[in-house]
């Protein structure tokens, strides 16, 4: 009996094999990865860090041609305003051509996703920049996470150090398609100056009710989202 079962299985196997050979399953990644860029060479070492994220983090790139590449290791160089990805296949850090990028997403240590998009900034510091979208709406709140390389005291807590350091100089922008960009400070007065007097009173109440004090970027974004959710008119 066992012999017969084996015979049946063998026959089925023989019948199936030509069919398997005849039909090919197209490879999933037959359109090979096409991120364009140049080899990233690190700058000389100074005090501080030119990168937003010290280590490569999982991210996603949306290219200008509509291609979406996810699950790749990304790093954002604030100083050069460049996106760097780690190519596992060739074990190389590659500076992605800015012209080819539409937007990208970085995942921070907490697992939160940060969406950056390339926009041509007008006005103060004009040019193509990667801007993080803090809040999206009719008026969008964006931040350019710029760092500057400035001279600094050579003698620090641990003795003699480098004479230059990377220092945060983030620029926050309000953006509207019609009106363009306007700088804004992530502070209470700056936010209130963009609202009608009646809305200022209302926002004060709402902030008090929510026990929200605008002390840093996180709280500023929360307050901004309250402005949007309460449909207050923004003037800039």
């Amino acid at each position, binding site marked *: 009996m066992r012999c017969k079962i084996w015979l049946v299985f063998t026959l089925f196997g023989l019948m199936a094999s030509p069919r398997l050979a005849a*039909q090919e399953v197209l490879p999933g990644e*037959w359109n*090979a990865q096409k991120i364009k860029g*140049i080899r990233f060479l690190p700058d000389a070492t100074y005090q501080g860090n030119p990168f937003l994220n010290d280590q490569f983090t999982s991210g996603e790139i949306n290219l200008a041609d509509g291609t979406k590449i996810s699950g790749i290791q990304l790093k954002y160089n604030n100083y050069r305003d460049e996106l760097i990805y780690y*190519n596992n296949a060739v074990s190389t850090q590659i500076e992605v051509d800015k012209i080819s990028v539409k937007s990208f997403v970085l995942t921070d240590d907490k697992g939160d996703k940060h969406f950056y998009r390339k926009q041509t900034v007008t006005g103060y510091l004009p040019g193509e920049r990667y801007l993080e979208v803090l809040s999206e709406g009719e008026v969008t709140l964006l931040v350019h996470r710029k760092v500057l390389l400035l001279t600094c005291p050579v003698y620090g807590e641990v003795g003699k150090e480098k004479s230059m350091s990377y220092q945060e100089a983030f620029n926050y922008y309000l953006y509207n398609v019609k009106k363009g960009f306007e700088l804004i400070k992530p502070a209470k007065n700056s936010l209130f100056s963009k609202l009608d007097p009646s809305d200022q009173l209302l926002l004060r109440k709402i902030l008090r009710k929510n026990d929200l004090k605008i002390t840093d970027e996180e709280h500023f974004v929360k307050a901004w989202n309250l402005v949007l959710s309460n449909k207050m008119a923004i003037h800039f």
Partner: protein
Amino acid sequence: MLLVTLYGKAQGKECFGLFTDRDLYTSGETMLLKAFAPSAVQGGILTVDLFNAKGEMIASVPLQISDNQADGFLSLNDTLSSGSYLLRVLTQTSVTQTVKELYILNRFTGVTESGISFRPAAAISTPDSIQPLFTVSGAEKNYKRREKAHLTIHFPADWMALTEGPLCLYVAQAIPEYNAQTFVLNHKPKFSSNAGNEGIIISGIATDPATSTPFKNGVITLSVPDSLPRFNYYTTGENGRFYFQLKDYHGRISLVLNGNDPTNYRPMKISLDKQENLLSSLPPFKTGIFPPELRKVAAKNVEALNFSKIFKQQQISVLPAKISKTDAYPFYGVPERVIYPKLFVDLSNFEEISRELLQGIKFRDNNHHPTFQILNAQRNSFFTEQPLVLLNGVPVRNLNDIKDLGSREIDRIEISQYERYFGNLRFSGVVAIYAPKFDFEGLKESDDLIKLSLDAVQPRAVFNPAPNDQAKEPDLRQVLLWQPILKPETTIGVDFQTSDIIGKFRVVISGKRRDGRLFFEEQSFEVN
């Protein structure tokens, strides 16, 4: 009124419908095509292939599917010999193929002396029962030459809901003596994924020329020469197979496939998959005698075609190919420097150009062994490897191909002096030479280089209107009207003008129902 409804299903599988303007053609003519795809095939492309009696593919036309249908044309080569041919429609992943028998006469030799043709002995398609669908009013039995005709097709209202997509309407010469058969065959698709229908697939295998074993980790590049070249690559696996899909390409394109081993520099042989031979899947054929009446009609058609060639009459006008969506900048990045050698003093060869105009680039021709080096702008030292040298977008491995290019031949030279990456490919700098007059015929094919020209998605064509009925030139149209996309309406007015060709003609309307059934109906008339 003759009415036939074809049940477009073979062994329970919905199949393609294939219609041509006529069944008998003369070499040098243009065949007009209409294909209805199964409901499952929502988009992408289908291919219409022409096979000769030996089952060899003569021509292939990829057509864009829209609304489960596609239409196009096939230009029949002047050199086709007289005999039976088979026209086949399918997609790269379909499990059925629809085949239509045709007869093509060579316009120089006419019908073969022996007069023997062959026909399928058994058709596999299963014609369904005949049910009247349309009524036609205003049609005459006889028309005069160059007479304007008008008829009205009344489409039953209940069929409107059952009809899927537009109809196809045409008025063309009818040859009752030759009734071409259409049959459905099973097809073993080469690829199983639906993604295979989105574009033309070019596939093949890379092997080690010494052992003929599959070449693992070989890089096959595909280049489309252009002012903004297109480039793609594939890294082979254990089986050495490679695949490229060409999407968004229209009209005739030239391609160059190049194989190389970027790590160990081993020699490689690349070969494309052979074209399918239809003969193995065909039903048995029987031979027959070419009827004398048909021989007369065929002779007249050949004469008409020869005259229409003399008067340069065209039944269709091909619209310009849709411009393919291109990238904003080349695959090797925005060049840091662009040199226009024509703006400088005449330099006779590339070595002189490199010495005089290309800073940081060292091209030297030492006893027919040219070398190329480029300065790395990031490290300020020369790369040890040769840069990627492109000629009109095609990678050049043999530098002898470019050494004789002088400044008069070169339009521009684009240079990138960085270590560039395109996906997983690394280039030690890039020098892209654009020489518009360079003939790729001069690029020699080798084990690792294949040149090919193929038809990408066919551009659309429009049927030319009838000439003025007072025109002095003979009107030799065998197709009086061709409307492959006709909106189904309860009343359809049909206007056409007969030509100087006398004989039998037919008005044909075809379409597809939502249940997958194909239908066509024809009304015959005679021109005296």
